């Protein structure tokens, strides 16, 4: 028999808290030691109860889950924090994982996954809802070798480089045309030719290319 795990429920929705409480208490080794309806409340309870697991909702009035997360970690350092939320944006996931959350469960799958997620988190693993792992992996896709790209860039004509740099800075074709003393049509042609040589499809990929290779600096 494993030791009892103290659980803190943080959700602004009382009915849901009650339901979750019922579900968790069906598990003999889980004990709900507190329910908080807001971030502030959660901080107080976490400090007092020192739970082993915090089920944290992200959107709450006042202090939300995202903001409360770092403070909760400080108040209850040993607690594993499992996010239970409606939001399926990878941005939220990034944010909370960065801030030390141990797992991420979507509410739409709470009935099925919550318990196994709790188990995984308590085992020391990180649990992320399967549909969202993709967003995490995308950042790790292999980067293109930069020196090759610079060579490609250097193989462009001076004019093409100038036009592409201006385009990457976000100027309109007309503005580029005026700046470089060309006709807008010529600018279009240079741009299309240069991007084709670099194998780029749109302005965003051009900007990424330029940033990656230090051809432009951000925020200018």
């Amino acid at each position, binding site marked *: 028999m494993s030791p009892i795990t103290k659980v803190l429920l943080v959700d602004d929705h009382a009915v849901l808290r009650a339901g979750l409480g019922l579900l968790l208490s069906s598990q003999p080794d889980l004990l709900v030691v507190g329910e908080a309806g807001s971030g502030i409340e959660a901080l107080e309870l976490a400090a007092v109860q020192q739970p082993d697991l915090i089920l944290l909702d992200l*959107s709450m009035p006042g202090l939300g889950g995202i903001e409360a997360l770092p403070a909760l970690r400080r108040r209850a350092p040993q607690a594993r924090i499992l996010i239970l939320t409606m939001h399926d944006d990878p941005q939220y996931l990034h944010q909370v994982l960065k801030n030390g959350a141990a797992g991420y469960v979507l509410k739409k799958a709470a009935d099925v996954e919550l318990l196994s997620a709790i188990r995984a988190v308590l085992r020391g693993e990180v649990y992320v809802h399967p549909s969202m792992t993709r967003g995490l992996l995308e950042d790790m896709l292999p980067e293109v070798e930069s020196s090759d790209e610079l060579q490609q860039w250097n193989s462009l004509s001076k004019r093409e480089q100038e036009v592409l740099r201006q385009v990457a800075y976000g100027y309109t074709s007309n503005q580029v045309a005026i700046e470089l003393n060309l006709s807008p049509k010529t600018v279009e042609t240079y741009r299309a030719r240069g991007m084709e040589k670099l194998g780029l499809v749109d302005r965003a990929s051009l900007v990424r290319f330029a940033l990656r290779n230090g051809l432009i600096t951000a925020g200018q």
Partner: protein
Amino acid sequence: MKTEILRKLMARFWELAGGVNVRIKIMGIVLGGTILLSLSLMYQVHHALTAIMEKDLVSQGISIGRDLAVRSTDLILLNDPYALNRLLLETQRNNSDIRYAFVIDLYGNVAAHTFGAGFPVGLIDVNEADPQSYQNTVQLQTQDGRVWDIAVPIFEGRAGSVRVGISDQRIQRALFDMTSQVLLTTVVVLGLSLLAATFLTFILTRPILDLVEAARSIGQGDFSRRVRRWANDEIGDLADAFNQMSAGLERANEGRLERELLRRQLFERVLTAQEEERRRIARELHDSTSQSLTSLMVGLRTLESDCDSPQVLQHSRQLRQVAAQVLEDVHNLALQLRPAVLDDLGLSAALERLAKEWQSRHSVQTSVIVQLGSERLPEQLETTLYRSIQEALTNVARHAAARSASVLVERRQTDIVAIIEDDGQGFDSEQVQRDGHLGLLGIRERAELLGGNLTIESSPGHGTSLYIQLPLVDQTIRESMIQESNISH
């Protein structure tokens, strides 16, 4: 054919006349008029004077001849060449017009003459006195000008004849002097009239130039400009009419501005209200409906763990699936209304999400780059950018038939620039802007509300780029502008 030539001539004339300004035209009129007048006057006077003076000269010559004939009769009869000679010389001395005078005796010999050096050969034969007539005059061309040779018979031809040569040198000189005088006067008058013309053109063109300048500034939107009524003439009337027009335009413009301002404010209010309402409903769906549904699902799940009846379990599972489906629908509905991520995490995350969702729905390759740093933009700016980009992407999906689209948002000095580009079929941007595409109009209106603007670059076959530029400056500037225009009304 004729009309063709005439037309060409007229065109040429207008090319010349239209090529110079009013000042030159008036100068030309004055100069041309003065010169023409003085030349014709000079010609007339010269002509008339010459005729009169010549007539005078000849009759003077005749009377001198007659006089000589009478006075030389006795001397010839007495055969006194010395006295005769003296008479001739004296007569010549008394009258400077006399070029020469001589007396021919009955035998055709020169009895006396005024030629000191010697009598010119052939002069005798150029004229002959007719004893029956009073006199006979012949005009000669000599090296020194015209000479009228007058032959007068002496004693009715019984004692020879007198010949007098009258030169017009003196009157030529007089005429030359007069012409020079007239010319000099003409030049002086010309100078004076040029001065007068300059002054006149100044008077004439200054109000016109004023009008031109005022018309130009009205064209540029400064309706407060008025012109002075310089004179009580047609140009003065024009100035009055112009001022009336400017006043009318100013009133109309003020009304237009006022309505525009009201329309803007209304639009802004509608936008804000709409956004507020959407946010409220989305929150409600998220915070209340969704949580209730989740509670339902969790509750069912709890029930299941305490239940042994397979039938009830089966039923409960179905109910949970229904609830999950409803939850999903509610979640999507809330997202469409207003994604919580926009409020919680900001523009970058919201756009990221929008693009991903859009890409999977329309299978158009979409990339998003947001370079704004970690600092959040003002809420109004974020909403405007998000909605504009949403609208732009909707347009791309609806019209562009694009393979890829890109969204770029970056800070440029004090501006935020958003660029939405696709490689679709494009359109004639001028025509679309003229026809007033509602979606684009909305984007433009939203941008202008924040003091920004929208630039569209597109041509058929070359894709479309929308450039949205929004000033990052605090909204207070815009508000103070609105207040200012309120005060001025």
